[in-house]
């Protein structure tokens, strides 16, 4: 008599055994049950919360480590703030101040936003895993060092426009340009296939280079010294 080895294929239920009961998936109680929805809170709290989030991200940009905070909770308030600040400060910096005041603000604004869009599209086309708005967020936040450099340059320019001031401004702008590029690559490069990082970094380099160039060649308008 052969022994039948009990194996998995031998499992069978003889007869029809009806199975009864309820299948429910236990749903955890909603986490905001005890808090009111954010629509009811005072405006001051909303603004403070958003400002704190923006401030936290500024901190991440100034000390770039490989963290995912900028990517996870992306927002566009910070970039907008920085862009408007930079554009306002770069305004009115040429010979005919009354004619060039308007276009310069628009120029910087359009440059920053369209530049970011193009870099994002480029990184997506090269096979990046980052989403559109996340990339815009990172590029916008990494303008912070350049904005700081702009403030420093304006302060230095108050003291005169000689060679010494030019050298100081040059060093400050180059340092902040390097910082910006390094910070943004720390966030962006991880989302790319490893052998294509250079292809993504180059447009970022060019973008911050153009902005740095605009900051470096900025000179405050002075009264017309006609004959």
């Amino acid at each position, binding site marked *: 008599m052969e022994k039948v080895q009990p194996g998995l294929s031998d499992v069978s239920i003889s007869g029809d055994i009806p199975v009864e009961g309820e299948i429910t998936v236990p749903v955890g109680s909603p986490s905001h049950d005890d808090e009111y929805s954010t629509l009811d809170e005072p405006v001051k709290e909303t603004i403070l919360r958003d400002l704190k989030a923006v401030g936290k991200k500024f901190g991440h940009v100034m000390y770039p480590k490989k963290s995912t905070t900028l990517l996870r909770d992306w927002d566009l308030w910070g970039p907008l703030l920085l862009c408007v600040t930079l554009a306002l400060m770069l305004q009115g910096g*040429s*010979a*005919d101040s009354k*004619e*060039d005041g308007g*276009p*310069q603000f*628009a*120029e910087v604004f*359009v*440059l920053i936003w369209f530049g970011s869009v193009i870099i994002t*599209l*480029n990184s*997506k*086309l*090269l*096979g990046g895993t980052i989403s559109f708005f996340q990339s815009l967020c990172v590029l916008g936040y990494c303008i912070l060092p350049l904005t700081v450099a702009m403030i420093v340059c304006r302060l230095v320019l108050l003291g005169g*426009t000689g*060679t010494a001031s*030019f050298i100081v401004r040059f060093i400050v702008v180059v340092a902040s340009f390097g910082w910006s590029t390094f910070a943004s690559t720390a966030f962006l490069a991880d989302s790319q296939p490893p*052998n*294509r990082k*250079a*292809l993504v970094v*180059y*447009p970022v380099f*060019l973008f911050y*280079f*153009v902005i740095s*160039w605009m900051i470096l*060649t900025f*000179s405050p308008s*002075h009264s*017309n*010294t*006609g*004959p």
Partner: protein
Amino acid sequence: MENMDDTSGSSFEDMGEMHQRIKEDEEVSEEAAATEEGDDGEFLGMKGVRGQLGRQVADEVWQAGKRQASKAFNLYGNIDILRPYFDVEPIQVRNRLLESLIPVRIVNFPQKIAGELYGPLMLVFTLVAILLHGMKTSGTVIREGTLMGTAIGTCFGYWLGISSFIYFLAYLCNAQITMLQMLSLLGYGLFGHCVVLFVTYSVHFHSLFYILWLVVGGLSTLRMVAALISRTVGHTPRLILCGTLSALHMLFLLYLHFAYHKIVEGILDTLEGPNVPPFQRVARDVPEVSVALVNATVKTIGVALQSY
């Protein structure tokens, strides 16, 4: 993967349509199931057959419109259309940049032209950046528009416009080249322009510019011309196509240099006089340049008025 010569037409549209049809079938069956259930419940509570009919017609129209719009968007708004043209490695880009200055002598067999858009696009943006640098250091003041707009318009206009024009001529002359290859060829040809302008905007020697214009500009033009000749049959078509391309390419470099440098020359002569050798590199700050420009212009106008 190298992008080979692909003249098979827009196959992505066929694939897109197939996917869209499959999705539509699923959606239609879902909608049919939903409206069946909905109808049973709502019919009793409605005003009557007329109200129900009107609502259904409106629904159908809306769904049809939505389907058409999403079909069109998925087909043409999809960024994945451009994805194959950006499929490059950094080392390939570097090699193509260097090869764009080395003419290849094969004219009896069609030369291989890479159909890629990353390199040309980056080169156009680099050219824009270099032009901005040149405009700022020469103190160009643009009244009707902005520096940025002019630079971007010039570079992109050249790349897209001249590519289209040469593609049109190639079509007339029966040359075997696709639009993508033409864009790629001309884009890489801008590498020579970038190099020349970068050097001459930093070091203002006139004779250096002419030498570089002939050598570097000439090499990149020869490369493009050789590629086109290898794909065209007949002497006259070759002459027309290549003559036009060479003329436009070389003249563009000449234009880029002179349009933004004349002002610099004028100021140097006015400020320092004829005794100083005119081609010295002077580190100067932009506001002084602009003030000097205004002074020089007014002086010239004054002199011109006096002589009349």
